[in-house]
Structure formats: structure tokens, C-alpha cells
């Protein structure tokens, strides 16, 4: 049961931290931390777009991922594509045709789960920028440990190096909404629609869906955290008129 950092249980996330509206040149920005991993995200837009990239019926979304060390490589290109294609159906880009939305994702500290951290930072930055979205999302990573076969949530770099398989998931908050009101939300019913999934290593089908369920539950915590973060920020803004 003991994890490498000796302080967490298998399905515990590291402490979250987030902060919005950090950068003065961007239209929106946010930093999101999962323990020792941290990603800063900036959003500019809807802004002018190069004619070459202009789309007549919607905004062009560009994602630039920048690594902490070294020049951007193919891993960063993969991250860019994952984030962009996941956001494209989420952003109501039809409301801002012929414009561009530029998202820059900068790794600030790396202790594993950078893609998940980046997803969460991005959604906070998009909210800060006021880009219209049809839902929010939350991302969590887990691994299946090589030795114990146990599923560990939110692994550190060290834990990742001992993984048999690694799984990154993204869930939106629509799924939880549609199930309320109807039958009680049953998280174990394997009915949580997956917005994004990227798994590598060696694993069975059963392991995969088990990971999906555990991550879905954890993603709800992330959704809740995002809600609280936004709430706190708004309360601060409304001090003068809402005293």
C-alpha cells in the first residue's frame, strides 16, 4: 500500500494549487499544480489571425506546448495536438469566426503527469479569458505499478518509471450533469463517457476500464476544485459592489 512518497494512498491525488489571472499581457492565464508538477497556461483571443489560418465559420485554435528543458520536440507536438483536438469541440468557436485563439502551455516544474496538469491549467486559463465553452474538463493520470499491479493515481516521475502502463484521462462535467436527476449517479457503473484518453505500456482491457473509473472519480474532485477556484476569484472581484 505504501507509495514511494510514503504520504499518499493509492487513489489519492497530490495537493492541488491553482492561480488565475497571473500574466498581464495575455487575455487569460492560469497556473495549475499537482504536487511537484506545475504548468502555466496563457490564452490570447479571440484575436487577429493570420489570413492563412483564418476559418470563415469559426475561430482557429492554436496550442503551443513548451518544455521546461530543451527545445520543443515531438513529445511537445503530441501534447499540442492532444490539447487542441480535445478543446476544439469544447470551445464554442462558432461564436467568434475569423479570429484566432492562441493557447501557450509552459511546463514550470516537472514531477510527472504534465499532460494532465496542462489540461487543467488550460481550462482555468480559458475560463479566465472568458472564452465560451460548453463545459469544463478535468484531467487525471494513473499508472498500473509493475511490481504490485496496483493502480496508483497521479504518479510522480519516480513512480512513472516503475509503471507497467500509464493512463491519461480527461472528463468533462456534462456527464455528471446528465446523470443527476435521473437514477442516482453510479460511478462504478462504467458509464462515464471519456473525452480524451491516452494509454501506453502493457495492460488488459479490464485494467484499462478500472483505471478509467478511478480517474473519473478523481476528475470529479478536479472539477470541484476548479469551481471553488473560480468562485474565490469572483468573490474577490465583487467586493466593492456586493458588500
Amino acid at each position, binding site marked *: 500500500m505504501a507509495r514511494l512518497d510514503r504520504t499518499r494512498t493509492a487513489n489519492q491525488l497530490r495537493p492541488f494549487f491553482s492561480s488565475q489571472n497571473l*500574466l*498581464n499581457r495575455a487575455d487569460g492565464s492560469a497556473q495549475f499544480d499537482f504536487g511537484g508538477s506545475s504548468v502555466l497556461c496563457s490564452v490570447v483571443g479571440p484575436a487577429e489571425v493570420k489570413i492563412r489560418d483564418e476559418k470563415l465559420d469559426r475561430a482557429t485554435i492554436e496550442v503551443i506546448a513548451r518544455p521546461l528543458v530543451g527545445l520543443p520536440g515531438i513529445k511537445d507536438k503530441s501534447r499540442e495536438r492532444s490539447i487542441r483536438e480535445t478543446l476544439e469541440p469544447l470551445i464554442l468557436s462558432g461564436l467568434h469566426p475569423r479570429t484566432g485563439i*492562441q493557447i501557450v502551455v509552459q511546463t514550470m516544474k516537472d514531477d510527472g503527469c504534465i499532460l494532465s496538469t496542462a489540461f487543467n491549467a488550460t481550462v482555468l486559463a480559458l475560463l479566465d479569458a472568458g472564452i465560451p465553452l460548453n463545459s469544463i474538463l478535468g484531467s487525471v493520470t494513473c499508472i498500473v505499478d509493475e511490481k504490485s499491479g496496483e493502480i496508483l493515481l497521479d504518479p510522480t516521475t519516480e513512480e512513472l518509471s516503475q509503471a507497467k502502463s500509464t493512463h491519461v484521462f480527461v472528463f468533462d462535467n456534462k456527464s455528471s450533469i446528465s446523470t443527476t436527476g435521473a437514477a442516482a449517479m453510479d460511478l462504478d457503473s462504467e458509464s462515464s463517457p471519456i473525452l480524451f484518453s491516452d494509454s501506453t505500456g502493457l495492460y488488459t482491457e479490464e485494467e484499462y476500464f478500472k483505471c478509467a473509473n478511478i480517474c473519473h472519480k478523481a476528475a470529479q474532485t478536479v472539477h470541484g476544485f476548479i469551481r471553488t477556484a473560480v468562485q474565490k476569484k469572483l468573490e474577490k472581484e465583487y467586493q466593492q459592489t456586493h458588500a
Partner: protein
Amino acid sequence: MREAEPSTNEREFVLAALKEGARIDGRKFYDFRTLRLSFGSDYGAVEVQLGNTRVLAKVSCEVIRPFPDKPTEGFLTFNTELSPMASSAFEVGRQTDEEVLVSRLIEKAMRRSRALDTEGLCIVAGEKVWSIRVDIHFLDHDGNLVDAACIAAITALLHFRRPDVTVVGEDVTIHTLEQRNPVPLSIHHIPICISFAFFDNGERVLVDPTYLEEQIKEGDMTLTLNVHKEVCAMSKAGGIPMELDQILQCTKIAVVKVTELTALIQEALEADAKKRQVSRK
């Protein structure tokens, strides 16, 4: 995306205010903005905030083979690509004049002035040396990227610890951080860049210009010095012509500023070292 030019009102107001001896953010002419340094949990990572300008520097190292003509010299490289995060006018993968000038200034300030002892990075002559890499990430651009980047780079290098190595014959063992305490780099001196902006035919000289001031300025100059009053680099690339006396006056101001900033950096490093000691216990 081209940067929006400031309006005539802004231009005229900034100049008029300077005539009254005032700057837009309330500073005196020779004041730096508040400098904040924050360190990560890793060695060699520092985030610098100079007013609204933000820069992150991260130092990393690896063992590589030296150049055959310099078998005992390690490497020190800088990555100063301007990120679109700092300003959407910066494009990925396109080299602009601004980027070249920033990167060359950092290079001259750090490498040409021999701030780092590169000979000390040798492990086995002709076989293995340390290569130290400094990645400088520009996060937010509110003017004076060079000074902020230089502070970030040198502070990160001072903060950095590389793994300890033992050499027995030709066998090299690199010890992990758990096995042995990592060792600091040998830094000869601390070069600090001080940038000036000139207005009114060089009559008015400002230190640490903001983005708006940079857009309006008539000329600029960057001096790099250390506390030993050595000029490590000077760069005035054209712009408004200045009298020799005015330039010498700037060096005097820079000497004072460098002393102040060096003290701030050392204070921050000491505070961080103390914090680390406490958390280790």
C-alpha cells in the same frame, strides 16, 4: 500579430510626465521595479518577477564528450527563444532582431565574461565533461526582458547543484542526489545587466524601462557589470547619439544598481538555503 502602437496621447503624456520628473508607475528615474525571486523545489530553477515582467530560468546538466580542440572545457549553453506566452507578437520558430539581440546580450554577459568556470566542468579530459544548459522562458513581457533574464540566469546558475562524480581511472560514477550531496558550480563573478532608456535627445535617462517606455524611447543601452566594478559588456546599438559624458554617467548609476541587485540576489539565495536546511531536518 503586429504590436499595437501607443496612441499619441500616451506618447505625449509619458514625455510630459518625464519633464515633471515622474514615471507612469510612480518610480524615480533610476529606480528598478520590485524584484521578486522565487525558487522551485529543484535546484537551479528560479522565477524572476521584475514588476510585471516575468522570466523563468531552469538549469540542467548532462555529461557529454568535449570538443577535441578544447578537451578540458565543459559547455555552457543558453536557450533564449522568445515565447509567445510573453507577447503574442513573438512567433514560434521565427528569429527576429529582438530575439537575436536578447540572446547575444545574455551570451556576452554570461559566457564572454567567463562568469562560469567552464574548465571546472571537466570530468575526464578529452572524454567526458559537463554540459550546463540554461533554459530561459519569457512568461510575461512588460519591458526590460534582458535585465530580468540575466538576473534569472545567474541566480539559477548560483542556485544549481550538479550530481557529484567519482573518477577511478577511466570509470566514472555519477552519484544520485540521494547517494551524495550534489555540488554547486564554480562561479567566478556575478554579472548583472542594467538597461537604460533615453528620451528627449538623451536628456532624460531611465533605468529598467517598462514596455510602454520601451515603445516610446529614442534609444537604449545595456551595461553589464559586477560588484568588482568590472564592465563585462556594453551595448548601445545605434539609436539616439549620446555624449561620452552621458554614457559615463550611466556607468556610475549602473555600479550602484549592480551592488543593490547583487545584494538582493544573495539575500534570496541565503533565505532559500536556510529554508532547505530546515526542511531537511
